[in-house]
């Protein structure tokens, strides 16, 4: 009963530590105008706008769709705001896609952003609560213990994380929009970087970026644009409770269920073979081997071996994060949408220097919170 839905336009900003050359409105317009141009459309062709971002406290602007409506050409149209923690960029794209696949709208603009430099994101994540322990750890402090647990459980050698950190930064050199362009990156440079949250070093963590991402999604009879469309073959969201007895934070059930759902829709039974590439939310290096296992690209405990073998490198058989990924650009609210957008670029053949040759089917994944929220989609060059 669902209608086909396609990505017909993509746009993203140059991601930087501080985009003080633009306002919040200017930032989101930069991405949105690029997506419209790519789709060969104008603001008036758009039926509805769906916007997403991480907590409002990052910019101090409550429910920003209210202020951004005119900047995004939404006046007189439906405008919708999604917030599902770090997975929000992906979830936002999915909400927009459902507006098309449900048959309600023909062309939907979806935008996600973060302007972290407008506030202190570390502060916003650690707002003192009167009943909590007087102990602040920051985002890395939440994830580092789980990384340690993964290393223990899988027996992975400690250099695996550094390999991912190097690989993704090398990929970023091929992506003009990436925040980090570290030409000299190598294993030693990562090893010499400051230990932030032991076992996590500075260069094994994502940067803090200002940036935005935008896509135009269209129904089959409304396809336009400069490149062939990327067809949506499957989409799914899953959540599990944040904390519960016996929760597996290294291989969360919600991630497994979400990928099973999206693979079923797309007819994928062997992700490593069937996908040509994947963009996966890896904010800390060790999340690549963890998600390789969680997403079924290998057996449990073997994720690090896949990374070590070079399979996920740009010239490997299943490139992960050819764009440089979250480790190279992290405008939080937009980071998930960038994963979804980058795989659309790959199957449309518009990824330029980081184009994976002949990419036809690809997986985009985003996760958020304490690894309890997941959103995923599969896009392909062929119609589903």
């Amino acid at each position: 009963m669902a209608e086909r839905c396609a990505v017909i336009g993509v746009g993203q900003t140059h991601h930087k530590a501080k985009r003080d050359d633009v306002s919040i409105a200017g930032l989101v317009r930069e991405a949105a105008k690029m997506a419209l141009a790519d789709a060969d459309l104008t603001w008036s062709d758009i039926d509805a706008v769906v916007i997403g971002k991480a907590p409002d406290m990052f910019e101090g602007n409550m429910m920003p769709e209210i202020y951004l409506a005119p900047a995004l050409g939404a006046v007189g149209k439906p405008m919708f705001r999604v917030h599902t923690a770090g997975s929000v960029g992906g979830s936002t794209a999915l909400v927009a896609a459902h507006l098309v696949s449900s048959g309600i709208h023909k062309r939907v603009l979806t935008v996600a952003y973060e302007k972290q430099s407008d506030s202190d994101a570390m502060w916003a994540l650690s707002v003192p609560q009167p009943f909590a322990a007087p102990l602040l750890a920051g985002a890395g402090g939440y994830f580092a213990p789980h990384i340690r647990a993964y290393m223990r459980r899988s027996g992975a050698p400690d250099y695996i994380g550094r390999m991912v950190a190097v690989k993704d930064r090398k990929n970023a050199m091929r992506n003009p929009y990436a925040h980090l362009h570290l030409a000299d990156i190598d294993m030693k440079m990562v090893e010499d970087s400051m230990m932030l949250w032991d076992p996590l070093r500075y260069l094994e963590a994502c940067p803090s970026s200002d940036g935005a991402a935008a896509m135009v999604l269209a129904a089959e009879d409304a396809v336009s644009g400069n490149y062939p469309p990327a067809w949506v073959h499957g989409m799914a969201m899953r959540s599990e409770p944040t904390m519960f007895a016996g929760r597996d934070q290294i291989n969360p059930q919600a991630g497994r269920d979400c990928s099973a759902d999206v693979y079923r829709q797309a007819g994928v039974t062997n992700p490593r073979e069937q996908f040509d590439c994947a963009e996966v939310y890896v904010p800390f290096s060790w999340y690549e081997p963890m998600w390789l296992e969680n997403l079924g690209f290998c057996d449990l405990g073997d994720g690090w071996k896949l990374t070590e073998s070079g399979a996920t490198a740009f010239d490997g058989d299943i490139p992960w994060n050819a764009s440089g990924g979250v480790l190279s650009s992290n405008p939080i609210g937009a980071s998930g949408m960038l994963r979804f957008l980058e795989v659309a670029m790959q199957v449309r053949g518009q990824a330029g220097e980081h184009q994976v040759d002949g990419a036809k089917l690809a997986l985009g994944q985003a996760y958020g919170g304490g690894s309890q929220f997941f959103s995923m989609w599969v896009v392909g060059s062929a119609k589903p």
Partner: protein
Amino acid sequence: MADETTDQGPVTTLATPIRLDFDFTPGVAQSKFLRGLERGEFHGQRCSVCGKVYVPSRGSCPTDGVPTTEDVLLGNAGTVTTYCVVNVPFAGQSIEIPYICAQILLDGANLSFMGLLQEIPTDQIRMGMRVEAVWVDESDLTPSLASVRYFRPNGEPDADYDTYKEYL
């Protein structure tokens, strides 16, 4: 004349101080936990459906979605399930770096929580280490986690990995 303003360059920053005050409500279950801290005790709550003990309980069993009503007095000791060493300075930090952030599974509980670990060099901490809570002086006890100064090793042999691997 536009030139006078453009000569000064664009305005790149506009500071708007925002201060908002909130009265938080801990709720029924968390109040019991906080009252326990005021007496120097850890209190958890058991789910009537799955039997798991949560500490601190926020009032519901996260998997069953029902109120946790049975109060359970927990031990003062527990096991470090996993940990990290914080080396990064950031705003609002009240402890000198580096320090150990440990996930601690109190004896009798089914959920670990994050605590500060002291009285041990940062390179000697291990998963499975047995630790105990060190409380502030009795006269300083308040209904707040500030009543727990920190955790420290209690000298017991390390717990077997299998006993806590489900709580990582």
